[in-house]
């Protein structure tokens, strides 16, 4: 059984039909990429999966259970890091634990346990403004992870970073993803990023968004940093670009 299933989701925002019959299946502990032109409704889809928005039609199932319109089951990370400037790094990542009713002290010590894995050791007492963009993004991801460690919705998490930092973040994510043991939906408009990170990619069309193409990526999360010269890679990349009409 798939971990997350999106079944026949339609959504009209204002007078605009944004999502039309979206079906997704996400296997446990895999990362699924959603590629699409900007403004095609990718964020709307994530808002629906996270329960912040109700679909007009269709259901969201997690482990087979209908969770349509319920917040709190999955954790959601946006393009902006949304760290609170008023709290230190450690207090920021501990927020989900505090919200779940744990004491400040307990939340801190629990969060401290994952600081190392997210490459943030030594910066616990820094304020977000004192950190680099990549670090802030990793902190936001740690906070997301601490809220719900099994399902992560990542909405263009690296889009605001410069190209080098983004590449480094991708390498870091490749390194830790299997360790985290999470299922992730990764929204992006970067074809190479999707090919590098995701087990499976869905391509959405321009508004109203439909699924145009669904591919499996055999060479996802490579442990090396080299460029692919595999002709299959090039062919897959071309077919994705073609589906995006670019």
């Amino acid at each position, binding site marked *: 059984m798939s971990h997350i299933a999106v079944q026949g989701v339609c959504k009209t925002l204002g007078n605009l039909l944004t999502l039309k019959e979206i079906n997704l299946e996400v296997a446990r502990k895999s990362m699924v990429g959603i590629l699409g032109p900007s403004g095609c409704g990718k964020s709307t889809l994530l808002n629906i999966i*996270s*329960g*912040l928005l109700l679909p007009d039609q269709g259901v969201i199932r997690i482990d087979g259970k209908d969770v349509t319109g319920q*917040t*709190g089951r999955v*954790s*959601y990370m*946006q393009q*902006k890091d*949304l760290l*609170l*400037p*008023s*709290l230190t790094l450690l207090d920021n990542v501990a*927020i*989900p634990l*505090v*919200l779940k009713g744990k004491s400040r002290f307990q939340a801190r010590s629990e969060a401290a346990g994952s600081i190392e894995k997210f490459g943030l050791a030594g910066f616990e007492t820094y*304020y977000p*403004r*004192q950190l680099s963009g990549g670090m802030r993004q990793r902190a936001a991801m740690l906070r997301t992870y601490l*809220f719900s460690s099994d399902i992560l919705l990542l909405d263009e998490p690296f889009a605001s970073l410069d190209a080098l930092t983004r590449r480094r973040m991708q390498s870091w994510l490749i390194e830790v993803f299997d360790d985290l043991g999470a299922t992730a939906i990764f929204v992006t408009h970067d074809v190479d990023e999707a090919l590098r990170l995701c087990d499976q990619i869905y391509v959405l069309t321009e508004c109203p968004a439909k699924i145009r193409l669904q591919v499996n990526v055999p060479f996802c999360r490579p442990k090396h940093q080299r460029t692919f010269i595999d002709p299959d890679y090039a062919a897959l990349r071309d077919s994705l670009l073609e589906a995006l009409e670019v």
Partner: protein
Amino acid sequence: MKKKLRNTANHLFPLLAVALILLVWEELVKFCNVPEWILPGPLQIWHTLVETWSLMLVHARATVIESLLGFSLAIIMALIITFVMNEISLVRKALYPIIITSQTIPIVSVAPLFVIWFGYDLLPKIIVVALVCFFPIAISLLNGMAAVDRDYLQLFKSMQSSRWNTFRLVTFPLAMPSFFAGLKISAAYSVMGAVIGEWLGAKEGLGYYMTLAQHSFNVDRVFAAIVLITIFSMLLFVLVSITEKLVIPWNDKFIN
């Protein structure tokens, strides 16, 4: 090094400008033979300040108490009212225009009413100070809360945060920089409010002292009181700035 030089210059130039103005003032008064009861020179004011220091301190005590109490009252009122306005949008819609309109009523016109209602004691002055200070604090707090990025609220909603937790962790702390901007404006207003209150009817206080001095054409005493008021206003401003640094050490201004 360069920064240090610029800092010195930043402090030096205003001081030089003040010194220059005082010098011109002193010389003009001497040169034109202006009588003391019309315009005394800075030196004369300084002498009066030293001479009447202990007398003025007695009056200053009342003014300081009124300003501080009124200022604190305004802060407490602003915190309570803006909290309710922020949580209940109906209250916000109802009160916002009233708060804005209330500012068009000249405080000098209602202050005498407070004297009629509450007498010549501290209370009417404290009310005047609180009224004058309330507006900048409340508006800056409200604007600060309204300016919080909606994505934060969305994020906290997705994490099933309670309203209270969202307020305590997001809305309130993020509104603090704006709140302190309002506090600084109010700090300066508070002393002025107390003086206006005393001016219109009091038994003590620097405002009362100034009316007495004015009626007997002791213009030098009026100026000496103005100097004292300025010093106290500045002290209050500095106090707010220090508090700001302690309460929100994470603000842009304090982190390079």
